[in-house]
């Protein structure tokens, strides 16, 4: 099977300009990361803040050029520093951001939000742009009358649906989702995760899903990469990583994640009761 996206030894440095007292320096945010995602699969990138997971997402989404390493999209090497990617390449990879309040232009009507990618990257006539935008609204569970509304008229979950719809307008093969549900309430999170699963089945989409929430990752991922301080410390299928985490950092991450298991709650409640009885 061919990989939709593949990265070899991806390195990313950020330049930190010097201030009045500090020297300019560079920070290595990614220290040589390898990955490969097959068509129709989901790679989850898990890590804490500062681990480099969003940096990697931006490299994969062709937003930032990596300092080193090779990125291949559908087998073709892509170097956005050397050649600006054309509409074809841009159409293949789309991104959904964390904060649906910040990623939509407050002055742009939803219809225009959805038609803009077509206007920029394709020669689709205006009437068809509109048709496709309306069809996409229905696909993500919104109504045709939402076409002429502004982002502020929608809830967080609806806005994230709009952002997903915008990303899908160009029929991409790869969707990079940077913490798409972490700004949403639990019940809305479930709806958006269901929507993503449906869309993946329908369009054969490949996802790169960045998250810090292990319970979400366990639900959605096929492959998991645990990233810490710019290095992929653990990589494997979801079953492997969750059943048998080998790296100490992964274990630490698992141990820190709160569990809602009834047996665990019973043990804790019992321990507290005993501690109290001991005090009295």
């Amino acid at each position, binding site marked *: 099977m061919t990989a939709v996206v593949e990265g070899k030894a991806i390195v990313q440095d950020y330049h930190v300009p010097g201030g009045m007292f500090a020297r300019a320096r560079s920070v290595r945010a990614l220290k040589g990361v390898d990955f490969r995602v097959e068509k129709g699969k989901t790679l989850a990138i898990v890590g*804490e803040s500062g681990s480099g997971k969003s940096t990697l997402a931006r490299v994969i989404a062709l937003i930032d050029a990596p300092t080193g390493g090779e990125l291949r999209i559908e087998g073709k090497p892509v170097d956005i520093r050397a050649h600006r990617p054309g509409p074809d390449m841009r159409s293949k990879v789309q991104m959904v951001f964390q904060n649906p309040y910040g990623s939509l232009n407050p002055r742009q009507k939803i219809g225009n939000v959805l038609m803009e990618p077509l206007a920029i990257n394709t020669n689709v006539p205006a009437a068809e742009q509109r048709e496709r935008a309306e069809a996409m609204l229905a696909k993500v569970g919104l109504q045709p009358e939402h076409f002429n509304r502004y982002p502020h008229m929608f809830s967080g979950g609806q806005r994230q649906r709009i952002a997903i719809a915008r990303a899908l307008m160009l029929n991409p093969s790869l969707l990079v989702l940077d913490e798409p549900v972490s700004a949403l*309430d639990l019940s809305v999170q479930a709806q958006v995760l269901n929507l993503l699963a449906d869309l993946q089945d329908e369009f054969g989409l490949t996802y790169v899903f960045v998250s810090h929430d292990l319970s979400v990752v*366990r639900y959605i991922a096929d492959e998991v990469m645990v990233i810490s301080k710019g290095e992929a410390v653990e990589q494997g299928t979801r079953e492997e990583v969750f059943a048998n985490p080998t790296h100490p950092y992964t274990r630490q991450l698992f141990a820190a994640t709160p569990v809602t298991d*009834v047996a665990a709650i019973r043990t804790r409640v019992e321990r507290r009761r005993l501690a109290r009885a001991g005090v009295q």
Partner: protein
Amino acid sequence: MALLNIRNLTVKFATATGSFTAVDGIDVSVDKGEVLAIVGESGSGKSVSMLAVMGLLPDTATITADEMTYDGQDISNMTAVQRRKLIGREITMIFQEPVASLNPSFTTGFQIEEVLRLNLGMSRREAHARALELYRAVGIPEPEEKLKAYPHQMSGGQCQRVMIAMAIASNPRLLIADEPTTALDVTIQKQILDLLMKLQEDYGMALILITHDMGVVAETADRVVVQYKGKKMEEADVLSLFENPQHPYTRALLSALPENATGDRLPTVSDFFTQEAAR
């Protein structure tokens, strides 16, 4: 007897489009040394009810309650002077954004010593010694150095530790924590929750934890109140809530947790309400 007792609390906000009821007839009570979790999604009024207790709501809010007592004293009719004796000493609060809760222009040491001097009448020297002691109690590394650090020089987890140090400075009997770990990474969240639970046990204070995270509830609470759209849906001890949730909304919330997923689809809260309606 309950330490804090609130009956039939209603909070209304006057808005441009009329009155909006954020909290609608909520009862809350917490005993000495108890950990109560208030769970709800955004807009459920979980923070507003506690802000009402603290007197931190804006003038547009109208607060009514049948009873609002702390340790037998009525807090709804207190004068500002009486209230200040209570709030910040007996009852303290920490918030979601630790970095934003601190003043960026002063060192964290100055800010905590200010609390000690103004609230507890300590001298500079006493305040400094006590601040050092508190920094050790909340596990800030190199406490002597960190007293001289500005908030931006510390991590989010450390800033939350400073906030906790300030909140426990007066040995309060009730600490209200409003989403104390939401802005933090899971490993830091674990440390902060462990710290709060340890302090709660050591000092025997009551803790009200406001959160949207069922995992946090499972790891900390003795008793749980589930709120939705300003109304109380369910109240139960933590074990019965997870083992045998009574209200459909609670069941919906628990089944929407990705770790409880059975099969390919996550049940959503709206699925649940349609099912209930069909029944």
